[in-house]
């Protein structure tokens, strides 16, 4: 993970080289005094930011890890006793207890993974289609691009509420339309029916995040060289073949970035589901589960254990993704 990210982010840029040249290769005439002053200033400038991150990120994270090994409750988080791994797994009186033995936890893990994989796949497919559309020259392109951005700008809570209204079982316009078209006979309970509610959630999430994927892909499309497309057109190659053989490989790096960002977001999904289906088990995700234990059941120890596992699962996903991504890129080179 370390080397991949640093390769992409730090040393790959021309500007960073020139920034480096100022402090290293030019030291001859500029003297090391300026350089030392700059490095000292750099750390001075970084300190407030690093201190803030320490307070709002590092410390709370470490405390969450610690609390997951205690039986603390929300009213008094410091009063908990250290109980080892009991929140995770404990064998007591012939039965297993704890997070890893809780079927609802495993349901929420499965729901989260299912949600993440399905919604991100749909977003990538539709995002590419929208990006290709926006990449074409036509009248009113700016207007369409602005309109496509609207779902992205709408707060998640608001979009969940808007869709909850459209998906309302009795008065929702979607049931009304589907019945008008004769696709269904009776109204569907989109958010209450255990078989449908996950799809309702996915529908809302896909609607909201297509713009993000589409914009990232569009940015990549606009940087593609036009000469190979002209060559392909002269040779009369079918546009679909051009897309899969030329365009797709060239936009893969941008697509990978979009996918990792979306995947990380999807694995920690909370607000869409909280608003649409509340704490229903059929759509419960890891974040919903952890917060329910922490806040509603006031069980900070157990909830922290769930948070910690979620953190570990996401870190694991990032490492795997970066590893696979690097290997794939390595093969292509």
């Amino acid at each position, binding site marked *: 993970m370390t080397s991949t990210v640093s390769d992409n982010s730090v040393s790959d840029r021309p500007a960073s080289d020139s920034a480096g040249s100022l402090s290293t290769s030019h030291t001859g005439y500029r003297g090391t005094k300026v350089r030392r002053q700059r490095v000292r200033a750099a750390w001075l400038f970084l300190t407030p930011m690093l201190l803030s991150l320490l307070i709002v990120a590092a410390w709370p994270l470490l405390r969450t890890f610690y609390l997951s090994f205690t039986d603390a409750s929300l009213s008094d988080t410091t009063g908990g006793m250290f109980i080892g791994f009991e929140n995770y797994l404990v064998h007591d009186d012939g039965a297993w207890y704890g997070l890893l033995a809780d079927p609802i936890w495993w349901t929420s893990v499965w729901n989260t993974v299912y949600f993440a994989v399905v919604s991100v796949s749909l977003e990538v497919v539709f995002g590419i289609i929208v990006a290709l559309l926006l990449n*074409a020259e036509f009248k009113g392109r700016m207007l369409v691009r602005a309109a*496509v951005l609207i779902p992205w700008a709408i707060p998640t809570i608001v979009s969940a509420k808007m869709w909850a209204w459209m998906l309302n079982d009795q008065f929702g316009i979607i049931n009304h339309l589907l019945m008008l078209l004769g696709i269904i006979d009776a109204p569907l309970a989109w958010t209450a029916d255990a078989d449908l509610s996950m799809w309702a959630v996915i529908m809302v999430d896909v609607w909201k995040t297509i713009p993000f994927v589409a914009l990232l892909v569009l940015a990549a499309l606009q940087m593609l060289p036009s000469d190979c497309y002209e060559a392909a057109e002269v040779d009369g190659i079918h546009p679909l073949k051009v897309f899969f053989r030329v365009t797709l490989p060239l936009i893969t790096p941008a697509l990978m970035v979009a996918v990792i960002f979306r995947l990380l977001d999807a694995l920690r999904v909370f607000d869409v589901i909280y608003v649409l289906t509340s704490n229903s088990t059929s759509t419960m995700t890891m974040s919903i589960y952890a917060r329910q234990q922490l806040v509603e059941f006031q069980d*900070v120890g157990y909830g922290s254990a769930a948070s910690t596992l979620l953190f570990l699962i996401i870190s694991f996903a990032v490492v795997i993704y970066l590893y696979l991504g690097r290997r794939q890129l390595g093969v292509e080179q």
Partner: protein
Amino acid sequence: MNTHVLNSKSRNSKVLNSRTLFKIAKRLGFYALTAIVLVYAVFPFYYAVITSLKPSSDLFRMELWPSAPDLANYATIFSESSFVRAIGNSVLVAISVVLIALLLGITASYALGRVRFRGRTTVMLTILGVSMFPQVAVLSGMFEVIRALGLYNNPGGLILSYTVFTLPFTVWVLTTFMRQLPMELEEAAIMDGATPWVTITRVFLPLMWPAMATTGLLAFIAAWNEFLFALTFTLTDSQRTVPVAIALISGNSQHELPWGPIMAASVTVTVPLVILVMIFQRRIVSGLTAGAVKG
């Protein structure tokens, strides 16, 4: 001979015809797809707007244009002091978060973008790592910190906790922008004996305004939309932010949600964002792609 000429002419035009037909069909298909995308993107918001304009008696009638539009739903939500307070809280929190993130972000991005020093890669990786981890992972720890500082059920607690996702993002995007500025500017400043602080405020700050507007806007949107922390770290109606206020609007029972006022509230908090996005469309796109594609 005459007939021959005529024949070839008509054959030619036939070929042309099928080709133009194909072209027209392709064009039509393209515009149809565009229209579908347009409707898909805009319709839910449009439907929320017309719902918010309907009197409650018309709410359950399907129509694409309200037959008797009125502003009763808006009057209802603005007569509730807790909703007005929530808007105030949201504005306060979002603006403070943006200012803090920009202030800390601009100095940090100078250090990370313009100075080469040992540990820079580590700092960049730490920032990237923080921007990736799930909010729920810090929930219990953050709850403790906020309560210890006496900021529970107070917008201050939200301002503090939102830093965890706005700051890494701001630093990251500003650093990519900072890197793109020409070297000569800084060399000239150093030649003139300017200290790093003067270099930032006099040389870079004027050039960074566009980038700061972009990141500030993105941080504003993120803070305005945040839900999990706002839900967990506030308790009373008077301290809530808008997303929580909307999520918690309830009717007499679970099945009788007051959809008119909910949609009016939703439209109220969304319209400023949609207008901002329309105006700063280009900037937002460049900010998002700088944060993601180049990062």
